[in-house]
């Protein structure tokens, strides 16, 4: 899945680079679709599926499967060709930026340049009980062989666990004068993660934390772009390692002190 940062982060203006989807022959625009329509399987239903795909702009539409997913529902697999061309050259994506230090280097730099332990608190907020993600970042054990922040001598990490109301988390962060607050949101049905996160930011603003402590958002449907839009300082998606997070926090703290990041 997408590397949370690093990789292709060359944001200088690029030359136009039109790209199309590719299946059989370069640029053929081949796309696979599947969906369900609320009608019984029949020749008419298949035709409806074909038109549906055409409605999406596909040509040479092939309804390759029509399955009776229920008495009144048909599931379709469809292939077609799309004319869409994307100019890859103009695509820019905000990416989390920081030096790529090893955990040891991170500890060293905190010790030398900040001279105090970095305090962070994290939780899975709202009614969300999925702690595996935030645990992966904070707990000793870490994630994919990368140790969690609890294990960094120069980090002081608090993990409040799951189902933590936004104001409880913020209060704790204020009490401890944290450097960073880590919010995890995993349940996303009907955008409840956005709603919760917006509410968190409103609360953070109300309490004057916003812009002072670093606010990090993470979860399987989170990316840096979304997090920025919602008012966080950074967003972290699937595959994030604890050291990615540590790097970002230290980078920003050093930046604030005007130190070379």
């Amino acid at each position, binding site marked *: *899945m997408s590397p949370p940062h690093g990789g292709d982060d060359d944001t200088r203006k690029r030359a136009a680079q039109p790209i199309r989807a590719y299946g059989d022959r370069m640029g053929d625009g081949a796309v696979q679709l*599947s*969906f*369900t329509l609320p009608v019984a399987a029949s020749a008419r239903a298949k035709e409806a599926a074909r038109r549906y795909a055409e409605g999406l702009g596909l040509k040479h539409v092939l309804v390759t499967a029509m*399955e*009776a*997913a*229920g*008495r*009144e*529902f048909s*599931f379709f697999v469809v292939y077609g060709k799309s004319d869409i061309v994307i100019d890859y050259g103009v695509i820019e994506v905000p990416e989390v930026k920081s030096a790529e230090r090893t955990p040891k280097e991170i500890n060293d730099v905190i010790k030398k340049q900040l001279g105090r332990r970095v305090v962070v608190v994290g939780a899975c907020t*709202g*009614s*969300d*009980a999925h*702690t*595996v993600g935030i*645990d992966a970042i904070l707990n000793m054990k870490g994630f994919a062989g990368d140790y969690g922040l609890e294990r960094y001598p120069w980090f002081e990490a608090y993990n409040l*666990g*799951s*189902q933590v109301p936004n104001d409880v988390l913020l209060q704790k962060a204020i009490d401890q004068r944290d450097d960073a607050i880590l919010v995890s949101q995993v*349940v*996303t*049905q*009907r955008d*409840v993660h956005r709603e919760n996160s917006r509410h968190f930011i409103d609360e953070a603003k109300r309490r004057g934390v916003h812009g002072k402590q670093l606010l990090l958002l993470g979860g*399987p449907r989170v990316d840096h772009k979304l997090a920025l839009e919602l008012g966080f300082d950074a967003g972290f998606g*699937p595959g994030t390692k604890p050291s990615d997070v540590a790097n970002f926090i230290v980078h920003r703290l050093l930046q604030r002190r005007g130190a070379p990041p």
Partner: protein
Amino acid sequence: MEALPIDPAVVAECRALAARVADGVGRFIQAHSTVSIERTVLRAYGAHGADPDGVPLVNTCVARLQAAGQLGLGAAHALGRELLRGAATIQEAAEALAYGAPPEPPGPGDNLETIRRALAPYTAEALAVIDRSREHREADRERLGTGPTPLKYVIVATGNIYDDADQARAAAQAGADIIAVIRSTAQSLIDYVPIGATTEGYGGTWATQENFRIVRAALDDEQERLGRYLQQVNYSSGLCMPEIAYLAAVERLDMLLNDAMYGILFRDINPRRTLCDQYFSRRVIARAGIVINTGEDNYLTTADAVEAAHTVVASQFINEAFAHAAGLPDELMGLGHAFEIDKGLEDSFLLEIAQAQLVRQLFPKHPIKWMPATKHKTGDIFLAHRVDGLYDLVGVATGQSIELLGMMTEAIHNPYLHDRFVAIKGADYVFRAARHLGDELRWNPDGLVVRRAREVLASAHALLRETVEEGLWSAIARGVFADVKRPETGGRGLEGVFARAPEYLNPVLEALEETP
């Protein structure tokens, strides 16, 4: 499948150790009750309805009794006294307790026997309602029959009960045997059962009596068309575990997620609360003839499935012991386990077979429930569907009773209508293609599968031994299960646990405990 050569003496010892573990907290359970147990007693007697704010009558009743320091006697005690004092109906009595003058302490004439006698017809009726529901279900099931095992179990979870009902029907039409309506994210932490039909939930739909009815009605209708009995599942779990057990019993649900440990570990519900609640709810469940689904599969979402496999087995023995203590026969114990080993590991398939077969052998009469890969799934639906294919293969080869079908969109969203369809079609293919694979297989006696099964059992045995020594409270507090630590007095809902007074009265429980 050929039995794996494991030592029956070790198995017997595990069972004995687990009984001792359960016993160790059994004394506590017998000496205590909880607000939700008491609310369930009131419901069983027929108290119903809510105030204009939606607070259920039974909650107000119990809260008031607790505030007045009278809950130690049991809600039935107060209710009976109201009857003795002239309330014409249970509802009138409950309303008096809830909204009338502050509850009075028992007077001189209020001896236990008098109260019990006043309640007697209602107690009988409370049990009769459950029994009639059970008979209704059993008659339907007898008449229509069920599909071959593994039974195909799917989840609906739109948040809107009407969509759920539509999707439940479609799933049944596609071949599902069992439909579980998943609950909204927050429900297990809420200390009351909402009322009425609901259309807004996140990650699931609220469990309410009316919602149970809506789905059951849809399945009742659908099963006649399909000529195959359809089973409904919900969650007797969280702070309202006993109440939901009761509502499910009345509404003819077939299965309930119900676990002695899940709420503690995964919802941070207070251990004392959950252990008391599970006892009472299982008494109801046993009477109602409902199959429980335990939640050991969940352990492997927070702990590693290779390292923590034995904790699943140990916990299953403990869950079994608790269930036995609550009168539940083996035939109603759908112990949970899962296909959760990291898909990237070499020979993960062999380890999964070992675990699935081990559990099958350890719990031979139990309708064990086999859960799909979840944690290691990603948004690559094609790979996910293939992983679920191997899962289905293990399921049919090892003779699992109930299979929750894996969804190719596990890492993405609550299942869509066609995700379920694709899963059912895929499972039907695998089950048919490998129908008698289990009869064919023999295992290399010196191989990895046999070794692994033995190791897991040995570790479970060791863990049970330790748990007996330190006691369950301490084991849970140390994070033995699911890598989650829960202190005995932490978590939610402890304030709802209270010591039974010497004159504590609960004729419903007494009757349930007399169930043969």
